[in-house]
């Protein structure tokens, strides 16, 4: 025999499940949207610059200059177009036909013959800041590669190192191919779980207020904790379901490595979902209008999570105020935990520290919900 409290709670959870699976809009948020988001982040959004159009103004027709041009033309990062003079190339840059122009001055080969590192000028279109940085780096890389090859051909001491260029040997760890997808897909999981935990919960509670079912339920013997748990548990479980779906898609459709354990994955997801659902419940206890509640949910959950997850924007590059603010959002901790689980493995000290932070935020939100929830209409 179940206790009356437990029986009521079970009835509430059961009702919530039936509703979610019969309501197309809830199914959309819970299952279709995650898939769409994963695919947008997985396929559509890529920060790897490839086949960037550049122009090369070759003022020097010597063989070394042509070899230098070949270095650019040969990589898959650039599609190089040839211009006979500086002004044509600059015009192409101004027209937006090319993203960057490399000017090879007429003393290029001569300088190289003298055993000095020749200089070339790179003009880069800065309108797309992200891309320009990448192009700059690639251009420097290509230049360094060219010099190295020339040195090897002529003997290592034949060319003096160029001023300002340091030979750096980089070795990428964890994300060896430096695929941005590998860090974006885990980042999108943060957003998906935030959406289910916060937005969906807010929507269903606000709808109950609007349809008068909340009033009818309040007038039964249902208590405040049953009310909260009756919403928290179903959407928490739904979130875990979505997390499973995300992990499967990430690993098998996008081939993102999954180096951590499932235990670590589900533990962090659970803590994060508690915070997200807590936030959703708090919003809907304070605000009962569907439109306003969902706007608040979007602005207070989705948007900051998007910014502070560190996926698209580097938190360390933000102004101090924003950096300080980022500590208040669970996304910050969850995104880095997920990236760790996917690409590094179970770095428990790091994960536990992050989980503790999310857990602290979750408890604040849930306690506030309990305090704010009334078994009355006001």
């Amino acid at each position, binding site marked *: 025999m179940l206790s009356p409290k437990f029986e009521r709670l079970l*009835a509430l959870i059961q009702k919530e499940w039936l509703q979610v699976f019969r309501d197309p809009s809830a199914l959309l948020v819970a299952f279709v949207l995650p898939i769409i988001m994963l695919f947008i982040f997985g396929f559509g959004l890529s920060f790897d610059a490839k086949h960037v159009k550049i122009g090369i103004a070759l003022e020097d027709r010597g063989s070394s200059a042509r070899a230098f041009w070949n270095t650019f033309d040969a990589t898959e990062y650039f599609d190089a177009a040839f211009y006979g003079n500086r002004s044509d190339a600059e015009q192409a840059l101004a027209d937006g036909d090319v993203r960057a122009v490399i000017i090879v001055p007429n003393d290029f080969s001569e300088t190289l013959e003298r055993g000095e590192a020749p200089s070339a000028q790179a003009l880069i279109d800065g309108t797309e800041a992200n891309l320009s940085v990448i192009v700059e780096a690639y251009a420097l890389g290509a230049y360094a590669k060219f010099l190295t090859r020339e040195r090897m051909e002529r003997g290592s001491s034949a060319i003096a190192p160029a001023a300002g260029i340091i030979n750096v040997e980089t070795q990428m760890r964890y994300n060896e191919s430096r695929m941005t997808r590998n860090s974006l897909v885990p980042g999108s999981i943060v957003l998906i779980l935030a959406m289910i935990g916060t937005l969906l919960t807010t929507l269903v509670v606000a709808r109950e207020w609007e349809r008068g079912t909340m009033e009818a339920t309040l007038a039964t013997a249902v208590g405040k904790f049953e009310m909260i748990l009756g919403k928290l548990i179903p959407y928490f479980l739904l979130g875990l379901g979505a997390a499973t779906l995300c992990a499967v898609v990430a690993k098998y459709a996008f081939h993102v490595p999954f180096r951590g354990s499932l235990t670590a994955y589900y533990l962090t997801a659970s803590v994060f979902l508690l915070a997200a659902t807590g936030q959703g419940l708090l919003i809907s206890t304070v605000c009962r209008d569907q439109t306003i509640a969902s706007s608040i949910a979007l602005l207070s959950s989705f948007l900051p999570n998007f910014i502070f997850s560190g996926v698209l924007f580097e938190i360390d590059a933000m102004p101090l105020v924003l950096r300080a603010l980022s500590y208040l959002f669970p996304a910050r901790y969850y995104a880095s935990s997920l990236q760790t689980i996917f690409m590094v493995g179970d770095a428990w000290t790091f994960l536990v520290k992050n989980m503790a932070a999310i857990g602290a935020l979750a408890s604040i939100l849930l306690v506030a919900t309990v305090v704010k929830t009334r078994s009355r209409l006001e």
Partner: protein
Amino acid sequence: MIRFEETTKIFKGATRPALDALTATIQPGKITGVVGPDGAGKTTALRMIAGLLKPTSGRIEVFGYDATRDTRTIRSFLGYMPQKFGLYEDLSVLENLTLYAKLRNLPRSQRRSQFDKLLGFTGLERFQNRLARRLSGGMKQKLGLACAFVTTPRLLILDEPGVGVDPLSRRELWRMARELSGPETIVLWSTSYMDEAGLCDETLLLNEGRLLFAGKPQDLSARVRNRVFRIRGYSALERRRVVTNLSKNAEVVDATIQGDAIRVSFRSALSPEEVSNRFFNGREATSTDPCFEDGFIDILRSSASLRAEPHSHAVGAGSSSSAPRVVVGGRFDRDEVVVEARKLTKRFGAFTAASEIEFSIKRGEIFGLLGPNGAGKSTSFKMLCGLLKPTSGDGFVSGASLRRSSSEARKRLGYMAQKFSLYPNLTAEQNLEFYGGVYGLDFRERRRKIELALDEYDLRRYSGVASGSLPLGYKQRLALATATLHSPVALFLDEPTSGVDPLARREFWRRVDQFASEGVAVLVTTHFMDEAEYCDQIALILGGKKIAQGTPEALKERARSRELPNPTLEDAFIQLIQKGRETDDAIA
């Protein structure tokens, strides 16, 4: 037993109490009606009993428990049906019942027999597995009641269960409430329909948060015994004129049109002969039984003369200071058809909301579309306003086709929507300005009409007030003023008076009568049966079809029988619905 002791509720930011020092006692074994217009405090009172709201001062005792302190205890024996029935739309009939049974901890062993009993009672057995969202209004309401009844509660609170459902379903609901409640049960039934109040054992009549009357409904009607009369023998046009004049008479409490007769109640008891000779030039006057509403109006009028508060809207609305202007309109051709519906049909996917609706309205005629929510009257109405495009068929407003030249047709009509379609943040005058502009009146014309309207509708003292904070009766006036600013030939009113108090309703109808006597064709939808009595012609709409049309008298005549020698319009409607259902069943 429930006891209200000086219970007051003032909502945050409100200027006047929603419920003002209510003291009353409610006895078990009876259906107690909590009666009053919108804003009377009915829902507030009911919610406080359920512990959903906390009184600002005073207390409520429910079977010996304090409503604020012992909320959980009270809720354990409470059945509560809120205004929108409180059903989960995505759950089936049986799932809704099961949910509420579990939430109220009905032992598993009792569930099946209780469900069977309730499903049998509501006639929902056949629809057990249908989702609540796909039930008709009447069925939803019965399911809502069944959910509230699932544990046979000692206290049953029903908040406006009769709103928007057809009169037959409403009658069935009353039967359910009577038969399912035991001798110790308290049933509280709130309503803004005065005719429903007459069905209760006891009533609490509220208005603007104050208790006006507590007791048996017959006792309220008894106030006006020997003061109510029916007078026949006037033509439709004369009736309107006579009623307008009567309402200015100091000896008259209330005068309304009821089919082909005039119904008048006087300040003091009179004999039929006196009435006939003194007021109606010897036309025969018959004394009739007073109803609950007569008593309500009598109280409102007498309290109006006692406390002459300039800002009390219910009183102001009925006072003679704002009586409509004298008829200035010239002659017009009474046979000219202004509005015409020809086989108007609207389908939404597989669902036919309106099927081949046909009628025509002549100049000076008031035409009523009558039917429960979801019957198709609003759909037909919206097609005629040019707001919905008919799937087939056509409508005409003074010759302009709604299909081919809907903007032309729309220019010729004035439309007053259910929720008044005023901009709540604009003042009364700004609303008038805006609608004048929308109707294309030039500046001088607009100013002239606005000045006229401000005087005529007695809106001048509110002209600078945001329309959202106007009293309901004034909102209604302003809406009518904006709808008629461009002197339309047809006036379309969609449930114009639901929720306003009877005085404001009468005053509104007097204005509508005024328009009709100036030659405007009026189309009005309503679910108030008594309001339909004002109409020259009524079409009854049910299930998307027009099931009958005629004058109120002709429709009542059809329902006359030996058992029912004096049928009301509601009786007539119920008979027609039953007949309609029988044919449906025969086909099925």
